[in-house]
């Protein structure tokens, strides 16, 4: 068991934690971020991909809307490599309340969100796939955001300022000395190895798990869990974010992200922070709602589905204790446990949006600094991040590279244009740490295209085995885990095209490879 000591320990490798460790490092504090799985495997890897303009919240929750438009502007400036300026449309159809657009336009004006009224003809010239049944339509500065790239951008920048990151380490206990939290016990979730990190202050950015983490210090943070499902269609369908202009409901939004178009979402209250179920009615609802705005999309090829859990936290002073789902405000809270519970050394940040992660980090780190009597102010809004050096996710870059590179190396994942040198480099970056194929997926988008790893899984496993000099048995198990993980996200979408695709994939695994014989049939366990 080893111990180390830092100024601040950040728990959670989502957008908020990543922005926080960057902020802390910039302010000259010795900070380390710990994450139980890989970066962006919590809510931040299971969201919709929308850089909010605030339009979605502006009528019911103007405070969040204002935060969104401010942060939207800032993120476009500081993490441009992770954002595509698609612009957004809010589209009303005859099925939507006729009095809503006027209310919404007024609320946008009050919140400082620039909207531009256009004609249905203009909208359809911009997005020909839109329905002809448009009663009102506005342009708004929405965007698409690759959360994986953004988080890696924050992390790389944090490292440049001396920040540290430890993935696959779970906080299993918080160390209390009297009225203070002074550190945490951690466990390596892959090897079971334990270690301790002492910290003057702990920042709890554990998203839906932040109630669990606070509980480790004997403190009570009540979280409501609100599950939402999303579906990626295999082409973009639209090049602009399309929102339904109505009070926020299911299936309102289409976001073009990279090569796909993400549809969603639903809102289901659940008991668990990691309830990632997707029920059949959710799939139907999302497709049918999207079809009302983009007719025909329902019959398109659905590539993959996933679900995320929104941690909803209503501070007691808000006096709105019974609100559920979309009625809970989407603004965030920073809980100073010294002030609230008389326990020093712990700050919790919860709620908000991916779009507002930098602001959430700023406010939380302000409180941390107060506790540490550290006076350097936040400067994260000022400087442009250098970008993701290792593996940008953009397909067009990759195509360019393949077509113009001198020796691009073999194409391993044809859907996402991942090459052998890219894989080898990504594997090497883990040093002597174990690497799962799913880690490489998040690093490179391996297996995230239409065939969902049918062809690349075997190839990537072979390359992994060579690079790590591991046994065939371990490699086969890794292959098995990976194809099963990919299966989980197509399971809700098995009809038509994707059903046929899965048949082909299953045929490869069972007949061509005989993977089912070799890999012990066990559920990949995460705990």
């Amino acid at each position, binding site marked *: 068991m080893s111990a180390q000591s830092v100024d601040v320990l950040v728990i959670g490798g989502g957008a908020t934690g990543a922005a926080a460790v960057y902020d802390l490092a910039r302010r000259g504090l010795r900070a380390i971020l710990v994450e139980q799985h890989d970066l962006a495997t919590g809510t931040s890897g299971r969201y919709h991909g929308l850089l909010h303009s605030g339009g979605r919240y502006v009528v019911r929750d103007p405070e969040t809307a204002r935060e969104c438009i401010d942060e939207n502007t800032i993120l476009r400036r500081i993490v441009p490599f992770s954002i595509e300026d698609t612009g957004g449309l809010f589209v009303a159809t005859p099925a939507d309340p006729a009095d809503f657009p006027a209310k919404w336009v007024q609320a946008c004006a009050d919140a400082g969100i620039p909207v531009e009224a256009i004609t249905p003809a203009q909208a359809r010239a911009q997005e020909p796939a839109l329905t002809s049944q448009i009663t009102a339509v506005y342009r708004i500065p929405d965007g698409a955001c690759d959360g994986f790239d953004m988080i890696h951008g924050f992390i790389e920048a944090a490292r440049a300022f001396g920040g540290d990151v430890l993935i696959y380490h779970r906080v299993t206990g918080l160390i209390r000395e009297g009225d203070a939290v002074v550190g945490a016990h951690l466990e390596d979730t892959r090897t079971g190895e334990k270690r301790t990190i002492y910290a003057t202050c702990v920042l709890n950015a554990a998203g839906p798990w932040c109630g669990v983490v606070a509980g480790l210090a004997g403190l009570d943070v009540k979280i409501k869990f609100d599950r939402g499902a999303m579906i990626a269609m295999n082409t973009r369908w639209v090049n602009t974010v399309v929102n339904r202009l109505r009070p926020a409901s299911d299936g309102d939004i289409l976001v073009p992200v990279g090569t796909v178009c993400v549809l969603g979402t639903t809102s289901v209250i659940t008991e668990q922070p990691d309830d990632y179920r997707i029920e059949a009615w959710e799939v139907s609802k999302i497709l049918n709602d999207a079809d009302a705005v983009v007719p025909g999309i329902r019959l398109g090829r659905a590539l993959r589905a996933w679900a995320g859990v929104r941690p909803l936290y209503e501070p007691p002073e808000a006096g709105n204790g019974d609100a559920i789902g979309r009625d809970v405000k989407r603004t965030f809270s920073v809980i100073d446990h010294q002030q609230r519970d008389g326990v020093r050394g712990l700050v919790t940040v919860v709620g908000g949006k991916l779009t507002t992660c930098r602001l959430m980090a700023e406010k939380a780190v302000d409180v941390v600094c107060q506790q540490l009597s550290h006076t350097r102010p936040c400067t994260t809004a000022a400087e442009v991040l250098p970008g993701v050096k290792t593996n940008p996710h953009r397909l067009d870059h990759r195509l360019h590279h393949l077509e113009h590179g001198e*020796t691009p190396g073999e194409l391993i994942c044809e859907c996402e244009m991942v*090459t052998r040198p890219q894989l080898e480099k990504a594997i090497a970056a883990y040093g002597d740490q174990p690497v799962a194929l799913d880690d490489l997926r998040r690093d490179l988008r391996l297996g995230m295209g239409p065939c969902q790893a049918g062809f690349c899984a075997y190839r990537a496993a072979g390359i992994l085995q060579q690079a790590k000099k591991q046994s065939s048995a371990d490699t086969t198990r890794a292959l098995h885990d990976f194809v099963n993980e990919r299966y989980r996200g197509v399971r809700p979408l*098995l009809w038509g095209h994707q059903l046929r695709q899965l048949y082909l994939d299953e045929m*490869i695994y*069972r007949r061509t490879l005989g993977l089912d014989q070799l*890999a012990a*049939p066990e*559920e990949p366990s995460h705990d």
Partner: protein
Amino acid sequence: MTDTGKTPSSGQYAFPRTQGTDVIVIGAGLAGLLAAAKAVRAGAKVRLIAQGWGQQIVTPGWISVCDRADDDVIAEVRGFAALHPDHPYALAGDDAVVRGLASFCRLAEEIGEPYEQRTKDGHNLRLITMLGAIQTPLAAPQGIAHGDLTGFSESLLLVGFNGWRDFYPEMAAGNLQQQGINARAIRVDLPAGARGWDLYPAELALLLDQVDARNMIIHQIKPHLSGVDKIGFPAVLGMDQHLEALSHLSEQLGRPCFEIPTLPPSLSGTRLSQKLRGWLLRRRARVQIGHPVLRGIMQERRCVGVEVGALGHNNIFHADHVILATGGLYNGGIQSDETGRLWEPVFNLPVMAPPGEGRSGWYEDRLLHEQGHPIHRLVGLRVDSCMRPLDASGAPMLENVYAVGHLLAGFNPLTDGCAEGIALATAYKAIATALGLKKI
């Protein structure tokens, strides 16, 4: 047979009389191809129409009849069929299994794509996969069948290519060793002229049609031969000169060389398809690949013709018999939608579905679930022992339409190890019944 070229205006289709029997086969998988060839041999006028090639161009290429049989495969099939009267094997009858397979093997031999079995005892082969698992089909293309490990206790050498993405011999060798099979892996450089980054199996196979390219490989392998008894390669050993390539390597290396099926597309399936097409065309069958059959044209309980989609206008072709070999869920013979509806698009025949609401009963929660996914076994058409589709009450729906191959319910083509056997047996039975052949 007559191509009327346009749709007659009245509700009735007046097909000019022609001589002979018109057999229309829909689907160009193993079942459709065998049915077409059988019908040609029986003297019928055959038209094979398919939207695309069937599964043989993506499967490993071998013929699974009853993979799990430990000894006599046909005896096992017979025993199994006796216990499962609704299984396609029971419906087709074990005679059809034997004759279908024999007739396929004869045909394959004739076109120069020989398939081999362990003829002496009728047992399954033991073949290795790219991952180092053992599969046990009954027959396989010659190059693949040469890898049979039955009674083999010596040493294997598995050969991969540096810079070729589709085969990782170390992975296979390691897994084989775990199963007590002595296997070693080496890699050699690709023959000159191989383009690097997206080298498909077919391109490599075309290169290896050339003696020079093969010599470059042979030269690199020779120093590694001590203690080696058999040499495995990915299944890219030649395209047009495949058999020459195989014997050239075996001779030069002084040991039997064999092939291991690669990721799709499957070269053996591609060669088989092309050569069968040629065989059919030379015998004046019409072969239309790339065209969808839109619907059957019915007169009461008979199908008198089919309408085929084509650029410009659709065509209508007369039929005395129709063999529906459209291949189940994978190849489009059965369609599905988000609500859980399942349908057969050409004749709108009733499709069996798994129990449960919507799509809820279709798939298990793990991809490689030991039992396989219910959808594969439960979805499909029911037929009688003549291969005629049945309605809900169990009565034949149409007099002259026969459904064969993957389209049928009652087996899981991915887990039961009998997919090709069923394709061949049911195709054989359908043609034999339709044309009144005696041998059944």
